[in-house]
């Protein structure tokens, strides 16, 4: 079966899940502080996470195509449709932008003119951290990415319909792929700085953009594995074998280690340098978010490292489903930890409560203890989980909707035969 049918049963299920997400978001909005910080930070967190998965899917597709990879042909449609989510991603980030202009939220300290007026460091950064750049950067860059995604998808579909033996479609596809690599590499950093790093507006790290991208990468692989297994369970993609699963698993494994490598590099260098302006980022997280901090490493390093190290685990559907769920949630957790502490800090300042952790404010022991747990910030609560499920359902609904319109297996891809006979183990 090469033609996916998006059944109404599945649609209803996903719409239900989206409904759950909406209910959770409404509830969050109602129980929130006056600034609706929890609601908006959840919105930003999930928008960034899923838009990033779409971006990485396009980047992976471009990289594999440029590198003459053949094995992924049977699963490339999944990445093509994932990458189309950049278009809804633009809308989601557009809501954040509207929020900045309309002062609906206080996610970004630098977007508050009063705060900037009395903050020398923010003034120094204001040439980059301002509403105009945030808007232009997001719209233009996401627009370019979405254009690439749309364009490559279109060439791929044309190849299905009118592919010829001279591989002209594939060659065009390869041109666009190669062109996207530098475009994606240069521009993604700018967006990550604006979307995520600027939440901790004083803080900076040159590695941050690559770190966040690695996190997206693993999340995208995990979601890909889940989608492939789901489609196989429905009887589609029969030719996708344990060999393809094995290779997807290798990517999940390798990039989990790569993510850890970047995590360690960033953490270790900042710890070793011991410069207060830099260490504050981790000090805050270690003191007030210890579960998130250590949990991040357990979910995203310890678990995949030990589970995926062996050859056979990467070839078992059950194990791969479990590991992929851990990794998908794990990197969502990672972005939670990147986003929430800074947002909370900003909100507390705006609300005039003074932020925790400020040395000279002198919390008394009791007061400090009372303020250590903040629903929706210290740890993801049920509302966060519900919101995540809602966004995931939106993502999948969009993906399946697009997937239905094309052949699951690209029949005229020049590497199709290689992919069908792909064998990695035993050699």
């Amino acid at each position, binding site marked *: 079966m090469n033609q996916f049918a998006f059944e109404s049963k599945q649609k209803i299920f996903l719409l239900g899940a989206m409904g759950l997400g909406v209910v959770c978001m409404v509830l969050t909005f109602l129980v929130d502080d006056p600034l609706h910080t929890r609601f908006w930070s959840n919105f930003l967190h999930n928008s960034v996470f899923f838009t990033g998965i779409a971006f990485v899917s396009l980047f992976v597709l471009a990289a594999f195509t*440029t590198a*003459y990879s*053949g094995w992924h042909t049977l699963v490339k449609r999944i990445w093509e449709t994932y990458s189309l989510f950049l278009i809804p991603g633009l809308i989601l980030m557009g809501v954040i932008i509207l929020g900045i202009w309309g002062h609906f939220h206080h996610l970004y300290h630098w977007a508050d003119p009063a705060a900037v007026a009395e903050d*020398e*460091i923010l003034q*120094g*950064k204001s040439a*980059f951290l301002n509403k105009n750049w945030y808007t232009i950067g997001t719209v233009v860059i996401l627009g370019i990415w979405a254009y690439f995604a749309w364009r490559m998808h279109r060439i791929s579909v044309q190849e299905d319909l009118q592919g010829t*033996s001279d*591989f002209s479609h*594939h060659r065009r596809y390869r041109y666009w792929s*190669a062109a996207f*690599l*530098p475009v994606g*590499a*240069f521009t993604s*950093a700018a967006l990550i*700085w604006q979307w995520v790093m600027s939440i901790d507006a*004083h803080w*900076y*790290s*040159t*590695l*941050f*953009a*690559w770190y966040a991208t690695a996190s997206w990468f693993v999340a995208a692989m995990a979601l890909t594995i889940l989608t492939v297994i789901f489609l196989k369970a429905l009887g589609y993609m029969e030719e996708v074998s344990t060999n393809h699963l094995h290779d997807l698993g*290798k990517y999940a494994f390798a990039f989990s*280690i790569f993510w850890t*490598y*970047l995590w360690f*590099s*960033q953490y*270790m*260098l*900042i710890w*070793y*340098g*011991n*410069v207060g*302006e830099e260490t504050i980022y981790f000090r805050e997280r270690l003191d007030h978010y210890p579960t998130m901090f250590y949990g991040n490493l357990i979910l995203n390093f310890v678990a995949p490292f030990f589970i995926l190290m062996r050859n056979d685990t990467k070839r078992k559907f059950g194990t791969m489903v479990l590991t992929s769920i851990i990794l998908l949630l794990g990197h969502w957790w990672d972005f939670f930890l990147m986003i929430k502490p800074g947002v909370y800090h900003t909100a507390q300042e705006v609300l005039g409560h003074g932020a925790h952790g400020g040395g000279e404010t002198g919390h008394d022991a009791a007061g400090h203890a009372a303020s250590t747990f903040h629903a929706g910030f210290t740890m993801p609560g049920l509302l966060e989980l519900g919101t995540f499920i809602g966004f995931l359902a939106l993502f999948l609904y969009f993906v399946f909707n697009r997937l239905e319109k094309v052949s699951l297996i690209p029949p005229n891809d*020049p*590497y199709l*035969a*290689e992919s*069908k*006979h*792909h*064998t*990695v183990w035993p*050699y």
Partner: protein
Amino acid sequence: MSAPVSAIRDPLIEGGKTYHDITEDICSPTEKTPNLAWIIAFIISASALAFYVFCVAWTVWQGIGSWNLNRTINWGWDITNFVWWVGIGHAGTLISAILLLFRQKWRTGVNRAAEAMTIFAVMCAGQFPLIHMGRLWLAFFIFPYPNTRGPLWVNFNSPLLWDVFAISTYFTVSLLFWYTGLVPDLATVRDRARGLRKKIYNFVSFGWTGAAKHWQRWESLSLVLAGLATPLVLSVHTIVSFDFATSVIPGWHTTIFPPYFVAGAIFSGFAMVQTLMVITRKVLNLQEYITLEHIESMNKVILLTGTMVGVAYLTELFIAWYSGYIYEQFAFYNRVLGPYYWSYIGMMSCNVLSPQIFWFRKMRRSIFVTFIMSIFVNIGMWFERFVIISSTLARDYLPTSWSYYTPTWVEIGLFIGTLGLFFTLYLVFTRLAPVVAVAEVKSILKTAGDQYVGNGAQAQAGTVEQKEVH
């Protein structure tokens, strides 16, 4: 039946080779008297090596004062050369380990020479920290073992010590990897030899018979070593970057250093592989094994890693401004517009701008352009380390101690001397062992030989059919 190969792939072995042709073509250079080009190259390299020995002796006799390092700029050409050589020593293990895991067939044409080059480059790199000690005979102080030197004990908190372990581990694993790959090929040379030569090659090939069990173990060992070497490719230059990044010196203390150093290392390593391969394939007549396809693939890696390094340069510049930290901002202002502006220009133009010509297929497949570019990249990556090290140190916190540094003839001699060491070893290697992995090239013949895949294959198949009809 071998796995199907897409018709869009170009062949990696040209000339319709048989297994016997492969053995003959690759092994025969080790059996003949060297040609004139080799002899001239060897005389030049060995002379440079001799000059190296002289410069080391001079440094030891006269002391480190014979270099132009000063109070402000206490690291100069020595560490620049060290990092440059270590970086070059990255391509071999990347090709042999990571590309093996990725099942990239084109690696078989170049992996042997690249691994050899890696080992020689790491040997050259290792010279500099040793010479910099001034008293070479005390080099054993770097090993942590119970001793009678009282409080003189290595500092485990220092990335310089981590470097000792990282590089020696890397060297060991790379050597094992290279030698493991060599064993079947040395046996092939042995089988063609007679007399003493046969005895020697029999000894170094560990009595390899080509039994199925041997191959099975050989394959397993290769994969295990690839798995071990893959993290090493990243860890070595990561730890070299820690030498700088763990400090709090503006321009050095930046978190992007580890992955960016690794990308730069692979970049420079591939450039050196290109330099050597372009010459080797010509001199040893191996154009049908190290084809334009190989050269183009490596040029793509150079374009990729050069652009990654470019992203890192711009990230550093941007974040230096973004940080709002005046010392960081000054460090980068000084890099770009300070007294060493020319080295920044050299770095940017050689590493980031010039590789962009490889966007054009014609350029990627031009031997001449490839050779010139490989030299450019080698120069550019040397400048990168010089920019990071000397130009940063030249302008510290205290303007009264600002200084300028130019090397003495001894420092230049040491650098040229290690080039001599490197090329001498490489030239000897081309005489002793097959420069292309015979067994591995044979393993891809049926899926990458031009009589089996690519446009020519159909034409040849056509002629065969026609012949049969007649």
